[in-house]
């Protein structure tokens, strides 16, 4: 236990002059706090994109309803379900990782989380191909008659691409944990990096939870 804690303890927390266990607890609390500050920052990042969408939609409500009808609801809903499931597995991994008993479960959950993330990107890729095939890219040959409908698709491409990049970073972080944990049995248990990565994953989930009703659901009724 002590050797593992020494492995996990980083500067400057190792210089606090505290017993290893409480130094590690403070390091973990610091890491969790740090990632939450970053998440607060990211809230403003994605919030600005959603504000852009809101203002454009307020200015062109009909064109936005017409444009949103063109998105593929099946892919969108499937992807939402995939991410919600991955979020659950991430939460289980994060909780199971406290204490040394459940290393196999944690490893399995991490791998499944990253796998579902990859599945999301794969579905998104198929969807992108279909969108391009239907010329739903702003510019010449755009199928909808109202010019502001192109604004909707500008936001659609921008927001989903930025979300996709965030998700890809998340997949990298989670896969890294899975690989390192698979190689070294002492790496995962109680490691603050697990919670940090999985909190980031949760945030990327939440972003999609809001993008889904904004991009896929308007204009369906009537």
């Amino acid at each position, binding site marked *: 236990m002590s050797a593992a804690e020494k492995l996990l303890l980083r*500067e*400057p927390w190792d*210089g*606090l*002059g505290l017993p290893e266990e409480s130094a590690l607890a*403070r390091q973990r*609390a*610091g890491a969790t*706090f*740090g990632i939450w*500050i*970053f998440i*607060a*920052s*990211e809230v*403003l*990042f994605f*919030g*600005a*994109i959603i*504000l*852009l969408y809101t*203002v*454009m939609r307020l*200015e*062109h409500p009909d*064109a936005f309803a017409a444009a949103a009808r063109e998105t593929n609801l099946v892919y969108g809903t499937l992807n939402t379900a995939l991410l919600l499931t991955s979020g659950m597995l991430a939460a289980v991994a994060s909780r199971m990782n406290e204490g040394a008993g459940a290393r196999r479960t944690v490893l399995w959950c991490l791998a499944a989380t990253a796998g579902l993330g990859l599945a999301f990107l794969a579905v998104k890729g198929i969807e992108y191909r279909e969108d391009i095939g239907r010329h739903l890219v*702003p*510019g010449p040959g755009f199928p909808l008659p109202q*010019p*502001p409908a*192109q*604004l909707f698709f*500008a*936001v659609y*491409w*921008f927001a989903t691409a*930025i979300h996709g990049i965030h998700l890809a970073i998340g997949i990298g972080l989670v896969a890294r944990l899975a690989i390192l944990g698979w190689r070294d049995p002492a790496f995962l248990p109680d490691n603050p990096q697990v919670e940090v990565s999985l909190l980031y994953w949760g945030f990327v989930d939440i972003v999609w939870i809001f993008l889904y009703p904004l991009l896929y659901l308007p204009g369906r009724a009537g």
Partner: protein
Amino acid sequence: MSAGLAESPTALADRGELALGLPESYLAAGHTLGSWLTSTDHKRIAILYAISITVFFFLGGAAATMVRLELFTPKADVVGADTYNKLFTLHGVIMVWFFLIPSIPTTLGNFLLPLMIGARDMAFPKLNLASWYLNILGGLLTASAMLAGGIDTGWTFYVPYATVFSNSAVSLGVLGVFVSGFSTIATGVNVIATTHTLRAPGMTWFRLPLFVWALYTTSLIFVLATPVLAVTLLLVVAERAFDLPIFDPARGGDPILFQHLFWFYSHPAVYIMILPAMGVISEVITCFARRRVFGYTFMVYALLAIAVIGFFTWGHHMFTSGMSPFAALVFSFLSFIVAVPSAIKVFNWTATLYRGQIGFESPMLYALGFVGLFTVGGLTGLFLASVPIDVHVQDTYFVVAHFHYIMVGASVSAYFAGLHFWWPKVTGRMYPETWAKFAAILMFFGFNLTFFPQFIAGYLGMPRRYHVYPPEFQIWNVLSSSGAAVLAVAYLMPLGYLTWSVLFGERARNDPWNASGLEWRTTSPPPRENFLGKPEVLAEPYNYHPEGAPPVKDQPRIPAQGSLT
């Protein structure tokens, strides 16, 4: 490097000096370039930042010199219109994002925050180093935009000009700023986490030096404002590179929305520049007046209030943009409110000086200059916050003079005040005081000569961002350009004598100014671990005299001594 050097307490110390048995300083912990470029020591990262922002400062300064040279006469005789646009854009972009925003937080802040709260390092040392690399990467991208032909949009990148019409290297420059934004977010996360988690025993929130509070509130802005700029700039790149219709009014976009998003960051960015400056000034004025700061808790609340209210006022940059008159009214009102905490700070510094034993060492000269310049800049800000005056002077040199009083007059003066104040701690060396005093006074006069005439020219109607102007404005421009020459000398002088002091300066004592802060309770320069034992804080900050004691009359002030003996 030879063994003799490594044994000395400062890496650069004279080998003939007496060995004092002091612990090895952070400067001696490695002499190779690699030992600097891979160091996670907050003190070394601060030095890396100091070097890079100095380079950017003189790059931006060179562009400003060309601008002032062109404006010496009413006609175009040095550069043409296009080159002039690129010069003032370069000046603005480099100075705002690669000098002013990182200046105090990443150099003095990085160096002093752990020392002031009694910590060994920042909470995330690797992130700290990564933030420097991001800053350099961003700076290189933006500088390469200059090589790729320059940017002609102005530092604000207003759309639709920047997205639809400009044929210059906007995307590259904007990406550079985007990358550097993540550098400041990383610094902000680090500062906030460090302040919360690594304070020494006894260092309660209301015992923190005001400089730490200033860094903390600045970091709130870093973390909460910068992401909005990042998205805005990314949207500009998306519109340019992928032809997405986002802000282009011809395709249904809303260019005013760009300004909202841009100023949501860029107005608080002014507070990013001024809050750390206020922190430095609070440290310097208390030390050289030998007084506790007047109204410590109010100073803290004023910092917090400025940081929070600063987010509510961005619209005063947009009164003439086509924003709704109702919104203009709201933003005007909110902008007046932010003057209240700013005024509290000025009054409290003045009250701190009252009946103090004031010494006029060079850091204090810079600090007193700050108070005057900040007051002028702040008061003219009130003119600009009221809609009718703003409509009159919008886009004139009045605005240019106003924000230079805050961003250059106040912030840069404070940066130099802090640089001189903590120089002995950072380098372990004393600088030649007479030169420093001369530079401080020259900077104050040079600054006012440069920018005060711009208030007048602007009020008379001279617009900004033109390389030619009607001849009746020439007198003001000649004054301004002459002042710029003086200012350039004043900025170059510290580069000379501070560099000299590193090599030949006298050894500094641990606490050459008899200051009260925790950062002085260790060797100069500090060891890698910062403190020799585990520091513990027992008293209030600025413990320069007994609590509640009246100022002592007619006592000769003990002059600060630079010598080690």
